[in-house]
């Protein structure tokens, strides 16, 4: 090996510099020749095509049935909802927009029978540790009453009683989505078994 400098350290530095320049070239060229491959779906001209398409109204490409993105954020959306003075203490708080709701129509029993059946199912559910684990419920979470509002409204015929189930998560430890999931997967099947599936015909809600 040539030693251009008297100081061995300087020679080592030069050798390292040469290695730093040569090795990437060597590895890069070999890798490009033998290992690196373009993706099978690679298309060289796609960006140009995509940019041409970008001129189109992107909304046309939306596959969704509802264009909910058209609601802009407003300052109010970010504000903390505040109830003031006496109204806050007296009034029953309106259901939060985040709560989930499901509406059913059918030949339903009276409110008392339905309420008793619902609470009984809930108690059975909440007492089961396997269900706690399954739904990841927080430790110690055991409301004695089902955190759901179930409202029955008479219809034109006995077969057209409307049941509206709304979650009551509030700022609780379990989200409204989880509660609705529990209702749909654990409580409702039991009630359907008891009162018949025709009693719970789901009504798609208008948005």
């Amino acid at each position, binding site marked *: 090996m040539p030693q251009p400098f008297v100081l061995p*350290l300087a020679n*080592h*530095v030069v*050798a*390292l510099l040469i*290695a*730093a*320049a040569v090795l*990437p070239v060597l*590895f*890069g060229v070999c*890798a*490009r020749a033998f*290992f*690196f491959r*373009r*993706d099978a*779906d*690679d*298309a*060289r001209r*796609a*960006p140009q095509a*995509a*940019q041409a*398409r*970008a001129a189109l109204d*992107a*909304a046309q*490409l*939306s*596959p*969704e*049935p*509802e264009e909910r*993105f058209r*609601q*802009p*954020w407003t*300052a109010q*959306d*970010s504000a*903390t*909802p505040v*109830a003031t003075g006496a109204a806050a203490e007296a009034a029953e708080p309106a259901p*939060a927009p*985040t709560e*989930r709701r499901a509406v059913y129509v059918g030949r339903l029993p009276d409110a008392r029978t339905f309420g008793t059946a619902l609470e009984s199912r809930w108690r059975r559910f909440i007492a089961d540790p396997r269900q*706690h684990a399954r739904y*990841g419920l*927080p430790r110690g979470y055991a409301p004695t009453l089902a955190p759901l509002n179930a409202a029955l409204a008479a219809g034109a015929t006995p077969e057209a009683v409307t049941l509206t189930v709304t979650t009551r*998560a*509030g*700022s609780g430890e379990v989200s409204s*989505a*989880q509660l*609705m*999931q529990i209702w749909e997967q654990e409580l409702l099947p039991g009630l359907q078994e008891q009162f018949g599936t025709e009693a719970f015909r789901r009504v798609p*809600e208008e*948005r």
Partner: protein
Amino acid sequence: MSAASTRENRIGVVVVHGIGEQRRFEHLDGQVRALVAALAARPGVRLTVEITSAPDAQFHASQDTWLASGPVRVHVVDPDAGRCVLEFHEVWWADVNEPYSLIKQLRFWAWSLALWTYPGKFGSTRPSARARQTPSTPKGNLTLRALSIRVRLFLVAAVAVVVAASVGIISFLAERLLKIKTPRVLETFVNYLAGVKLYNQKERMGGGLPAAEQDFLDTIGEPPRVSVRRRMIRVLMQVAMASYDRWYVLAHSLGSVVAFNGLMELAYKWPGYFDQKSWAQAGALADPLVGAARAGWAAPEGWDPAPVRPVWVAAEEIAYRSRIFHNLRGVLTFGSPLEKFAALWPYRVALAMEPAFRDGTEWINVYDPMDPVSGVLRSFDQAKNYCCPRPRNVGYAAGPLLLLSHLQYLKSPRGKRKTLGDGVAEWLLTGDSAQIPGEGPGWFKPYGLQHYLRGTLAWCSWVLIVAVLLVAGAIVFPTITQALGKSVRALRVHVCEMVRPDAAADPRRCGSAPSGED
């Protein structure tokens, strides 16, 4: 008006880590600590931090088990924002990285040296590509821009050689033999390269020689980045189902690419990231987040993997992204390499052309020229806002040292200035991002004086570091090679003496020098 008379604002926060060997909740723990410190510094604030532990735990576990969904909750009573509860979710994907092995290390270093020649990815012939758009290039010559980035990557490879020959050897031995942790500066350098590698490689390899493919069972034959995106998209759905009043994504480093990919994934591709039960749950909500596509919409036809659509999903079934992202208030990327991806592998960070975001959904990108991973995002502003919110670039002096600043965005020391943590805390609590940039020194505009000053400082730091590493390498490398040479010679002599008993009397027969000459 008492605080008790207000309803608690429920705010979700998704944190996405960059590449590294993070353990579960490690990144979340670090980020939440920084944010709690910023929240606690607000005048008149009161807060309580809760950890939601799972009801069960492993036998003989050394740690309690946290809930995977929203494991950390911070209740805040703030004079300006009122009562809020922040629930933090983590997108954890560190385990997608290949398992550690010597062969992985060797592959990594070989790949790092060759990175500058890695093929670009400019488009795709797959059917779903019709609804994607690659990031647009800023004004200037496209080829020159890509070339300049490749030159930089070549320089990174050259620095990698110098690093490997100096502190690399020492830290390798210290970490693997003595269990001493790698210096964070070196860790950042290696992690950055490893991240780029992971995101570009076509398969996930296991240990051994030759290494066998070790894709996850649900991603067989697909690149590891699909597994990474799966983690992201599942958390996005989880957060959407939790019905927050608003929620945010905070993504660091390569995590910003992960987050971006998740946010930009097409509605038709979403089912591929879920199991049947989770998909059904999202569809069974009172306000379903998945379901049939609108009438008249034609699904992409043909084979479209990464990920493939599951067999149980109906042909027209899609995710309702505009509902999922309805309460997404904003995205914060910090230390993000998105712009580098946009130059070399634009299709890896393609934008969805399907609208999903409400007007007012923000994207803030915080960068620091002293952090070579980060950069000003200039290629992501051509799409309509409802397809991809336009990024707002904010310069921030995260830390005083090159590379280390990559790790200090939310943890930067509090002086007289408002930190990024303060700005983020304000944004989360009130929905107002006006504090990013904040007041005081350390905040700057892209391509302003301070931007260039820090850029110059970064280059000077590089020169200084390389010079120091060269000298260190010139000392360490010969020393190590000499020591290795001696060991090999000694071993050879020892073996020779064992197989040739007559050599013990005459050491020269085995090639060893007489004592005193060695």
